[in-house]
């Protein structure tokens, strides 16, 4: 006998957005209200990186795919956003979208091996692509207002990327970045709760089973790579806007590995895992610097944290926090019923 009403997929989809909106808004409000200039700047990077990490969470958490070129895609998004800003003087939103869309296209191209490869082989191929980006960007550099498509300006003429008119100050820009992050997280959640999310879940469970369910595996994998690349590209544009210009030497293949590792540590299965990953990537080194400890010590901490996550907590910090919250909520419910 059917004892529960059929769930309305629309209602469930929108209900799951409430904690995302509330949590992100609360974090943004606290940081913007209380952080000093140094931490405002740090959090602008945290938000940009959280977007890139949410893209990894799509690939790893939803499909079980290990892609090690996310930091390179962040760089692609930053490159395109800077180019469009300096070359066309387009609005900041257009620059962001252009960065996101180009990174999405490149993400799909770089994800093509995933249609045949999984696991270590896919990881190696994507890492090689990240290495290729490192070489190309080191040789050509990021656009900085110089003439032509690849032209470089000398120090005196270098230009900063124009920020959005409503967010020219650092604090306002951070609020703007948080709003973009919220939109990105909502985009991912809507995917998770609808047709592509269910298709990704079937593929992760078993590709043969997914095929028998009518899932076009190549199409949905390409979709995931496009979404992941889009989020990284938007993150790259935000990072370019936060700093004003980007340094080609900062986008190494090793950083792509670090971003992936910390997404696993932060949690690839919960919406706030990528935010924790962004905090680990930028806030922890800054915190160590605050306490006069060399920020590179963070790498040792991250290594231990990754080991811990892989051995005892594959759901990451976010997954563990969610489990604690669920237990607490169940206990409260039982206490309420007893009362």
């Amino acid at each position: 006998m059917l004892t529960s009403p059929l769930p309305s997929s629309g209602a469930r989809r929108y209900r799951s957005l409430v904690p995302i909106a509330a949590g992100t808004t609360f974090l943004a409000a606290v940081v913007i209200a209380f952080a000093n200039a140094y931490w405002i700047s740090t959090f602008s990077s945290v938000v940009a990186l959280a977007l890139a990490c949410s893209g990894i969470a799509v690939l790893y958490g939803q499909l079980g795919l290990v892609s090690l070129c996310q930091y390179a895609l962040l760089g692609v998004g930053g490159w395109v956003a800077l180019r469009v800003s300096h070359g066309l003087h387009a609005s900041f939103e257009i620059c962001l979208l252009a960065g996101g869309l180009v990174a999405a296209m490149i993400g799909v191209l770089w994800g093509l091996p995933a249609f045949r490869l999984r696991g270590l082989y896919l990881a190696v191929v994507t890492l090689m692509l990240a290495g290729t980006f490192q070489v190309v960007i080191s040789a050509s550099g990021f656009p900085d207002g110089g003439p032509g498509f690849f032209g470089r300006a000398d120090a005196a003429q270098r230009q900063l990327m124009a920020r959005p008119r409503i967010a020219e100050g650092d604090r306002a820009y951070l609020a703007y970045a948080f709003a973009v992050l919220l939109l990105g997280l909502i985009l991912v959640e809507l995917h998770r709760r609808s047709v592509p999310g269910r298709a990704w879940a079937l593929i992760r469970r078993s590709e043969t089973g997914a095929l028998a369910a009518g899932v076009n595996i190549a199409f949905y994998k390409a979709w995931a790579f496009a979404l992941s690349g889009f989020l990284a590209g938007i993150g790259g544009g935000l990072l370019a806007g936060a700093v004003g210009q980007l340094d080609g030497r900062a986008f190494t293949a090793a950083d792509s590995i670090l971003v992936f590792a910390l997404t696993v540590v932060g949690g690839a299965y919960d919406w706030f895992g990528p935010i924790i990953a962004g905090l680990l990537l930028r806030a922890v080194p800054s915190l160590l610097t605050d306490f006069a400890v060399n920020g590179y010590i963070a790498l040792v901490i991250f290594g231990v944290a990754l080991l811990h996550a892989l051995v005892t907590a594959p759901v990451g910090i976010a997954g563990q926090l969610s489990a604690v919250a669920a237990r607490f909520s169940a206990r409260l419910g039982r206490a309420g019923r007893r009362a």
Partner: protein
Amino acid sequence: MIRMTGLTVQFGGVRPLDDLSAELAEPIVGLIGPNGAGKTTLLNVISGFVMPTAGKLEVDGRSYLALAPTKRVRLGLRRMFQTEQVVEDLTIFDNIVAIIDHVGSDDPVAEVGRAVAYLEIASLDRYGAELNLFERRLVELARTIVGRPKLIVMDEPAAGLTESETATFRHHLLGIPATFGAQVLLVDHDVDLIASTCSETLVLDFGRRLAVGPTRAVLADETVRRAYLGALS
């Protein structure tokens, strides 16, 4: 109706299906045979996971071999695997509607409602991880009967179930052709289940057709008993 003509599959020196021909028209058809007889290979050919070396395969008069697996699903082919395929981090509702996503429906929620009402599945917001084996099998069965199925192939769907669970499963299985308009091709080693649900049975041995016909007659056939059932007595 399933019509196969000279169906042959060759993997190197192994021939899991060897010049197999049969017409299977009954609402629930059994497919039995000893281990390695080619039963799962035949299901894989029907699903489109294995391309035969030679032969023809038609379902409801339509040639299947040129069709991609996803196209066959859109035409109404469904499959239940030997190992359960429920996604643990999706709810029961999402596990079922995930099939409709790819075959289309005017009213997916109503389709899921019809399937779960038929199978008496409760609490659709429970996650796959919370379900026991029997509940998982029911969810999988629900996945096969949504989206206007035409042919459901099942590979040992009752494996691991208790006697009472198998009886409930049998009850649901028997009603599928009349309620949902689909033909069922059932592979199982449980001869009682085959005998009580299938009006027609095909027996394979070494990839070849050993017998086909009314289940009662096939199970009483001396050749079949020697090759397959005899080992059980």
